[in-house]
């Protein structure tokens, strides 16, 4: 017994301790963390892809992939307002969240219980470059450098393959990401959003690039954008009643995309850029080629 005890102390000793600085400027000392609370779906996916998913003990309600990780972990509720006490109750030795998922006051509360909180860049920041940075950082934090390197190479290879395919496009299609859960609740997603990077990745031009971030959508703005292709989240498309329903949304039928019924479905998590992003882009490109 004593030997096992001594051994476990040795393994968990700060032998591998390393210091990282979060985007909030706070230094975080990490030494072989065993219990992770991860508040952000993209980070959950990256950590799982690095082979460390079994260490995740708590996630937010928005993290639903991969299921074998998110089903097993405790659900800490709303992705943007994790409760400090709930997080602490899971006794994590490291909390990982993106800036938008971790209000500064909550991070402070969690740190008051002597729990390390690592705050990462938001997942839509700098598109695939940002994704690779987060993969590298999480690889270093979780001692999976090799895996991280591999994952980043895969991402680069996928992007290169996409570039080749894009060349065969006859023109640069204007694409509009229509975020809607029903009539009258639509949003414009402009520059520096996850959907904007997806549109760029498939060789399109974001027809809503006149704005940064998100804005409520009006019918006239839709017509003015005049996209060749409209993309919608799977659940959004379902909520409005499929392609036929989407065509009835104000302004849609007056656009080239509406006239050609070029309304395509993308994965629900597309606004958060994670390891599956190049795959989503590839699927979208293939679907799009059929409509152009």
């Amino acid at each position, binding site marked *: 017994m004593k030997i096992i005890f001594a051994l476990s102390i040795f393994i968990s000793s700060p032998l591998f301790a390393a210091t990282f600085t979060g985007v909030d400027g706070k230094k975080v000392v990490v030494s072989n963390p065993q219990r992770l609370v991860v508040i952000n779906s993209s980070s959950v996916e990256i950590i799982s892809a690095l082979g460390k998913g079994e260490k995740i003990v*708590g996630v937010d*309600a928005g993290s639903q992939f991969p299921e074998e990780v998110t089903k097993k972990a*405790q*659900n*800490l*509720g*709303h992705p*943007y*307002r*994790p*409760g*400090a*006490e*709930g*997080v*602490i*109750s*899971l*006794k994590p030795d490291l909390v990982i969240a993106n800036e*938008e998922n971790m*209000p*500064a*006051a*909550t991070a*402070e*509360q969690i740190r*008051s*219980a*002597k729990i390390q909180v690592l705050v990462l860049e938001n997942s839509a920041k700098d598109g695939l470059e940002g994704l690779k940075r987060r993969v590298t950082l999480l690889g270093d934090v979780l001692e999976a450098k090799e895996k991280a390197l591999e994952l980043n190479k895969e991402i680069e290879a996928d992007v290169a393959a996409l570039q080749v395919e894009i060349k065969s496009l006859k023109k640069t299609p204007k694409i509009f990401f229509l975020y809607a859960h029903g009539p009258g609740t639509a*949003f414009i997603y402009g520059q520096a959003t996850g959907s904007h990077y997806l549109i760029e990745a498939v060789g399109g031009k974001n027809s809503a690039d006149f704005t940064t*971030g*998100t*804005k*409520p959508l009006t019918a006239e703005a839709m017509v003015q954008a005049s996209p060749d292709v409209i993309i919608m989240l799977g659940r959004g498309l379902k909520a409005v009643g499929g392609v036929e329903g989407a065509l009835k949304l104000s302004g849609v039928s007056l656009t080239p995309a509406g006239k050609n019924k070029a309304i395509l479905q993308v994965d629900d998590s597309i606004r958060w850029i994670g390891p599956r992003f190049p795959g989503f882009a590839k699927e979208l490109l293939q679907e799009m080629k059929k409509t152009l």
Partner: protein
Amino acid sequence: MRGKATGLAFIILLGVLIFTVVLSSGLGAVEIAPLQVLSILASQFGLNIGVPFTEQQEAVFIALRLPRVLMGLFIGAGLAVSGAAMQGLFRNPLADPGLLGISSGASFFVGLAIIANISFAGIWTLPIAAFTGSVLAIILIYSLAQHDRKTNIATMLLAGIAINALCEAGTGLFTYLSTDEQLRTITFWQMGSLGGASWSSLGSAAPLISLSVLGMPFLASALNALLLGESNARHLGVSVEKVKWVIVALIGLGVGAGVAVAGRIGFVGLVIPHVIRLFVGSNHRAVLPLSAIAGALLLLWADLISRTIVSPAELPIGILTSMIGGPFFLYLLLQAKKKGRL
């Protein structure tokens, strides 16, 4: 009879409140047994009573749980006392702190701070904005109601409703202009939460709310006189103008300070005074202190449920106050109707 009922209600409510404070100090996502609560408290004064607890339990209890429970206590009391005083002042059972534009004034300024990306005071920016908004709203309404150095209560009510509508429209505009992230902040603020409670936020709000809760009962006899109408109150020797100013200022403090640290929490100020009046009548000497205790109780229970029902996640407290208070209030109304008291 009334006096006896009041004394009894006071003792019972106070007992339940103490029980609730102890209970909710121990319950939450992190388990802390009652004896451990005592042990942790004792250890703060260097005493060891021999009940072990972990460092984490101590940190959660001292840094999160205790300030949160105390915050619920103060805010609940402040909202209920302000509601009771406002109903007395306006001689209108439907008056509530939301009506005078205090909460919506706060919302407006919070929305403004969020949309303009103002962050001069870090995590204190929104509380400061909220407090400024409530105080400005109340000053504005009060000055609008001034006429010949007198305050017209009817004008004040109408001005309050107008300011309320204006502020709501402004908040709506900010919501429309906001980005995803800003929208979330506004929405969550509107739902209210005690989750952000800390010793420093408690320290900023509790003294102001205390002024309101402890000061208002001194105006109980004046409020009773005002129930007979202003001229009658004047005949009874009440300096009506002064009293109105003081009451309005105390309401501003009680509600503004609470809204500033916990966001909008509806229902407490409107309904708690009614419940109390159903039991003890409309004497403000009884209604004000009993409302304070009952308001604290409602908020503590709502918070306890909000952080245990979906543990380790949390529900926003504004939803809970209405969900617990609403049916209970309806039940009391039906009872009173049956007995022909309404």
